[in-house]
């Protein structure tokens, strides 16, 4: 237990920049940590407000009975995504593997310390999703101290089972990929397959025949209970005050976690050993070598960087994958059905006018540049001693981001234009607006990573997911997309001017930012 405490403490200190904040003498470093904390705080606040709004909305519609199932499911989905993205890098392939495994600590203690850090992050997500709803539910259905206790415990237990399910999926994918020579590519393909499976399943769940919102809520809760049995257990425990069902829920959550720890501790060393064993041919013979310009050389290097890391690629291209899936689904969906469904709720039917911002929403979620400087890590001396202008490096990094963004935006634009058949001018903005946002996101991400780089990461995950530039880029992108998306969706007469304005704003912003960083780093990356 002592070793678990020590390992967990170190794990916690290495996450979220706690230790840098506590001990760094560099003021800039401490300021970055405070900024990072502020970004997390804002995200937490926004999530909580959103959750309160949903809980309040359910109460207004008399649907509080459904809250336990729906919020538990929402928490489970969040947990599955967070854990899936984190497992590879926290449990496997970590840089300190050799050092930690040489210490006199048990594998279960090590695993538990790593999983606890993931659990705490998931607990925050579960608290955002569940606490406001549970308070609303508790006020509507007074169950006494026992009821409140059940709800409190359920919040703490909610992340466990989905965390285990996601970690199992991630472990299986990694184990399967180890059998291939190109294991990174195999990991990426299998992970994308898993994401598509989850997206496909959720689309199937939404395909319900219901006539009003309350009926949709009921049907959704029934489907959730069917798909995710713990939701049914908690729903029964709270709605009918059944301690037996609650006990089942507790046993299922704790039992699955214990079993996972036990099984993983048996194969942990084997998987990691395989991960760190590299294929060495030792049979290379010199061949004719071509030449490339410095820009092309850096672009190729950056592209290989992206393709070499499943963490980097999956976290930065998930937006493009979802966009393509969404646009393909629209391509094969009958327009009349959609109009009928949306019209039934009095929603403005000129949905096509919002499409430029719907595509742009996926652009701002997919930024490779916001981690591209940090990911240079300890090898950054190679770039810093290279006799090339910083502008060349910037163009190469932006180019890689656009290589992912522009084709997916183009494909989505074509498919959605086929589905919605917009007028020519609106159709033109199906492409112009996402392209402008793609440039804006790529340049903003790069600018922020140049300003707040984090080179001392222990796992790529810290640079790709926890970096301040990553969160700030996505946050700023959302602020640039969501207001015009809402306006064009609700007020069709304003759609075109708003679209033109924000397209110009995004394009102009990208140009301005690029000029600023090019001038600031005119001859040297050191500033």
């Amino acid at each position, binding site marked *: 237990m002592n070793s678990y405490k020590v390992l967990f403490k170190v794990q916690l200190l290495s996450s979220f920049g706690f230790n840098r904040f506590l001990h760094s003498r560099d003021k800039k470093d401490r300021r970055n940590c405070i900024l990072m904390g502020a970004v997390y705080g804002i995200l937490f606040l926004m999530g909580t407000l959103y959750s309160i709004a949903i809980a309040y909305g359910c109460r207004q519609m008399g649907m509080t009975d459904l809250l336990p199932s729906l919020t538990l499911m929402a928490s489970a989905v969040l947990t599955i995504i967070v854990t899936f993205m984190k497992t590879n890098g926290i449990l496997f392939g970590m840089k300190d593997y050799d050092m930690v495994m040489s210490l006199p600590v048990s594998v279960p203690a090590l695993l538990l310390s790593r999983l606890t850090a993931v659990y705490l992050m998931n607990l925050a997500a579960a608290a955002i999703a569940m606490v406001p709803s549970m308070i609303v539910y508790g006020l509507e259905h007074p169950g006494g101290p026992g009821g409140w206790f059940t709800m409190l415990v359920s919040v703490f237990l909610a992340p466990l089972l989905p965390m285990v399910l996601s970690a199992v999926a991630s472990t299986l994918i990694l184990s399967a990929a180890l059998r291939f020579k190109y294991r990174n590519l195999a990991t990426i393909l299998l992970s994308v397959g898993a994401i598509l499976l989850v997206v496909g399943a959720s689309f199937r769940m939404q395909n319900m025949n219901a006539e009003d919102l309350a009926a949709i809520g009921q049907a959704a809760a029934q489907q959730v209970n069917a798909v995710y049995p713990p939701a049914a257990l908690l729903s029964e425990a709270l709605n009918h005050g059944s301690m037996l069902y609650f006990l089942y829920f507790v046993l299922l959550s704790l039992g699955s976690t214990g079993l996972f720890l036990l099984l993983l501790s048996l194969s942990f060393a084997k998987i990691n050993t395989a991960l760190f064993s*590299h294929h060495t041919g030792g049979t*290379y013979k010199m061949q004719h070598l071509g030449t490339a310009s410095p820009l092309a050389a850096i672009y190729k*290097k950056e592209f290989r960087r992206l393709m070499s890391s499943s963490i980097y690629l999956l976290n930065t291209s998930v937006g493009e994958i979802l966009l393509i899936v969404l646009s393909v689904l629209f391509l094969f969906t009958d327009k009349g059905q959609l109009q009928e469904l949306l019209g039934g709720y009095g929603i403005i039917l000129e949905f096509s006018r919002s499409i430029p911002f719907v595509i742009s929403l996926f652009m701002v979620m997919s930024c490779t540049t916001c981690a591209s400087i940090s990911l240079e890590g300890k090898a950054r001396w190679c770039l810093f001693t290279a*006799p090339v202008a910083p502008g060349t490096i910037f163009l190469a990094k932006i180019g890689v981001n656009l290589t992912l963004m522009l084709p997916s935006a183009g494909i989505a634009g074509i498919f959605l234009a086929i589905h919605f058949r917009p007028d020519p001018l609106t159709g033109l903005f199906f492409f112009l607006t996402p392209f402008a946002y793609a440039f804006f996101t790529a340049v903003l991400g790069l600018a922020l990573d140049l300003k707040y780089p984090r080179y001392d990461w222990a796992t790529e995950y810290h640079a790709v997911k926890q970096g301040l530039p990553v969160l700030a880029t996505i946050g700023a992108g959302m602020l640039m997309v969501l207001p015009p998306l809402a306006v064009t969706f609700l007020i069709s007469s304003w759609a075109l001017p708003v679209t033109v304005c924000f397209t110009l704003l995004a394009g102009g912003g990208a140009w301005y930012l690029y000029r600023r960083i090019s001038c600031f780093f005119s*001859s*040297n990356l050191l500033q």
Partner: protein
Amino acid sequence: MQRQTTKKDILVIRNFSKSYQKGKKAVNDLSLSVQAGDIYGFIGHNGAGKTTTIRAVAGILEFREGEILICGHSIQKEPILCKSEIAYIPDNPDLYEYLTGIQYLTYIGDIFQVSAAQKEARIRKYSDLLELTEHLGDLISSYSHGMKQKLAIISALIHDPRLLILDEPFVGLDPQASYHLKSIMKELCDKGSAIFFSTHVLEVAEKLCNKIAIIKNGRLIASGPTEEVRGSSSLEEVFLEVAKDE
């Protein structure tokens, strides 16, 4: 301030100082010059300021006090021009582990805009010499420390640098590779280039270098031709003596 450099000056460091937190000077008013053909050893205890100086010369450490000229050009004002003349190998060569050895060397060759023929010839020559050729198709992540060191050495020689800057180059190299590196260093200097390197291995510095500088607590306490610095004693004795005196 004197701004003249002689024709043969490859590296000139004038009054270079670098402060870190709370005004503590890592390097204080350091001046030295390295001429064509020099193998210049830079020695000092841990934390003396060797790596700080070397990183500033390589253009990867920003500084405000003093001046560093490479082939007559300021590393601060004309960094790209200066960097095209130098090659730097850090003490622990962290390379792009996701590339294969040959991909990395091709990348460096392209960055320095070396022609295909020259790139191929130099890679062939040095990778054969350091016995790395057959591993060039493997990912760098699969390399041992010594193999990474060899790859970094080959990459530093691809563009035939005027100034080779090395930070502890012999750490991790096997005896055979150390021997070849010393030969390469001598060959480069015979062609008119210069080498500026830090080391803890005083025997190597004594045998290999024609000039030596000793740094302690950020200050240069002895510099000049090896024979003059050493006098009648061994370099080890001189080093221990000056370290004790200061």
